[in-house]
């Protein structure tokens, strides 16, 4: 590099045009998130998300993101029911936040806060999805093939016709379903020994709506305050069967229907703290 290059007098490099990251393929639009800019860096998340938003506005129904490497906030507030987003690589935190309708399929692992405050739609992860997956979701479905981290499915809520669900193929950590006010969490425990508990401590702490189904051992001491544990009943079958078959279709796998191994964790009350306060005016 000559000194004149350093001072920009004779730079010949074309200015970076993010549109060059887009490739049209048969039936879909591909965005290469790893397309290097002038300085050899992959697309900034703002640039990638702007491209995705523009593609959605243009009416694309099948968007493929390739070479995703930790790009955050992908498809936040995306709201077209017929939209399918395919992600190859590792999306960053807050994938599909406030999602309202589309289907996102990740061929890799997702990071934290996947499906944050999602309203409707579907997120399928062919790998692990880590902490606070499905935070405060109000509708939609999250299917995770592998394991999840801490505080998954917390503060999910249901209202009228909408009801969120998180189905986890492997295991989850502590505080699964904390503050849950509605919706369904299913832990399938498909990848470990039968004697291992697939959930951590404080399961359903403060739960006041919704239900958590666990295929595998749960000890009484793992339950958080406000949570109670039962065997499955006939009423659980239709919803559980529906979610399990969605999982099987998404990952082309088979889940054993060994119901005697399952437990259901649900709220003891919809008013967990009603006796906690003294409303007397003094």
């Amino acid at each position, binding site marked *: 590099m000559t000194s004149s290059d350093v001072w920009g007098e004779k730079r010949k490099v074309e200015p970076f045009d993010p549109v060059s990251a887009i490739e049209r393929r048969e039936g879909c639009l591909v965005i290469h998130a790893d397309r290097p800019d002038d300085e050899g860096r992959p697309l900034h998340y*703002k640039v990638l*998300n702007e491209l995705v*938003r523009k593609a959605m506005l243009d009416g694309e129904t099948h968007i493929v993101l390739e070479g995703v490497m930790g790009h*955050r*906030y992908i498809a*936040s*507030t995306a*709201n077209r029911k017929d939209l399918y987003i395919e992600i190859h690589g590792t999306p960053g*935190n*807050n994938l599909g*936040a*406030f999602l*309202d309708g589309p289907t996102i399929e990740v061929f890799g692992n997702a990071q*934290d*806060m996947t499906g*944050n*405050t999602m*309203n409707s739609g579907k997120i399928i992860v062919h790998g692990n999805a880590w902490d*606070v997956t499905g*935070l*405060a979701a*109000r509708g939609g479905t999250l299917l995770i093939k592998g394991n999840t981290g801490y*505080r998954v499915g*917390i*503060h999910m*809520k*249901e*209202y*009228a016709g*909408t009801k969120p669900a998180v189905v986890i193929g492997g295991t989850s950590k502590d505080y699964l379903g*904390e*503050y849950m*006010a*509605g919706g369904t969490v299913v832990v399938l425990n498909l990848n470990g020994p039968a004697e291992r508990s697939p959930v951590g401590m404080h399961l359903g702490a*403060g739960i*006041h*709506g919704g239900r958590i189904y666990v295929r595998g051992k749960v000890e009484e001491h793992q339950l958080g305050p406000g949570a109670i544990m039962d065997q499955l009943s006939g009423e659980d079958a239709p919803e559980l069967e529906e979610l399990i078959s969605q999982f099987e279709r998404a990952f082309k796998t088979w889940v054993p229907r060994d119901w005697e191994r399952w437990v259901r964790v649900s709220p003891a009350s*919809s*008013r*967990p*703290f*009603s*006796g*906690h*306060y*003294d*409303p*007397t*005016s*003094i």
Partner: protein
Amino acid sequence: MELEAPDRFRPVVDHELCRRCKKCVTECSFRALEFVDGTVKPIGGCVACGRCINVCPAHCIEVRQVQSMFPPHANFNERVRRGIMSQATTGGVLLTSCGTDIPYPVMFDEMLLDAAQVTNPAIDPLREIVETKTFVGGRKGSLDVKENGRLSIGKDPGPMVAMDMPIMIGHISLGSVSYNAQKALFAAAKELNILAGSGEGGLHKDFNIYSQNVVSEVASGRFGVTGDYLKSTAAVEIKIGQGAKPGHGGHLPGEKVSALISQTRMIPLGTDALSPYPHHDIYSIEDLQQLISVVKEATEYQVPIGVKIAAVHNVGAIASGIVRAGADFITIDGFRGGTGSTPRIIRDHVGLPIEVAISVVDQRLTKEGMRNRVTLFAGGSIRSSADMIKAIALGADAVMVCTAALVAMGCRVCQQCHRGVCSWGIATQREELVARLDPEVGAARVVRLFRSWNEELKEILGAMGIDSVESLVGNRDRLRYFGPNSKIAEIMGVKHVGEGWG
């Protein structure tokens, strides 16, 4: 025998003047009056809300504060003993509402403003322009100077919202107050061209017409938060804390989750609406930066994104982190701020007075070269235009006002909001009570209140010889401390009375 504390208030009826219309009995939502043997009689439980006085056509009711029935003791005072008696009966955490009623020192009342004399001329605000327009949003922190000498706020200045006066109606949620109360506040904000907070719980569909004057709220419960809600409003505020309950979550009891609230918050009828104490996606400034960024992405960078925190002891460093995390505005809520329900222990004993918090934050951000990047709102008991002016001089760009707006609509600050039977139709969801508040009348009263405050602001600015409220922001040199504790003056960066500058 029950060991209950005696009543603090008693309605007294002049039976000679009483017309036996029974209006006071039917209007008393606290059921403190009854009509027996042809006369109105108090039956206990009066909270001094004053509704009976207001509706009595014969003007024959007064509410008296009952002389203390406790043996005098300055240390184990009546308040302390009442708390003990109540908790020994219920075994619960004491709930209360509104801002703290403990007579802590108020530094607003211990400061005096300056005026222009001889060496700088005063301005007559009735005949000359005194600008009170206030812009809300992030700034680049720099100006571009063009060759022709014109100034511009630089490339890509980011979204801004203009308000006609430096007042924002704070976040009072539908749930904590009634449909009619929130409608009145929003209508007032639209009329005044200022902002009003939606509070947690989303925006009722009827209120979409006010959305350009509404600041939506993302609180830890994420109630009612959808992409459309965030995109529709003028600004978005991420609520971390509230002055009346720093570090505490929200708790709307099942009794208040009516059909209307259930629909707006999108939760089943009659269940508790619990907001977690922290946001579980924010455990650090870096995490806050992510929530700010995702909301910016969600709103496509079209609206300012702010963060509201309660004033706590390390507020300067926290505010600094919030600016670094990319917030366009910061709202600081002092410990005297109001609420529709909070544990009394937190309301009365946690936090920092707003006067100190504003000053500490303004000085810290200025020292770090970032003050010019954000709009700073301050709330937590702004009772009058004097408080507003002093808050701005201490370093706020604008103030956030809640209780004063509710008082304008009828609230008497009786601290019973959490019981959900507000006789003025404000802090209640009972339809027959809500109907008592006419939203148009309420809005008109709030409009008149804030217009008069803005006129008073102009009077003061004129007297100081300042022609724009922006020039008062952080102008602590125009304040003097006139109280007992000069250490506080030193911390606030305000000189003591008698200290000049020349």
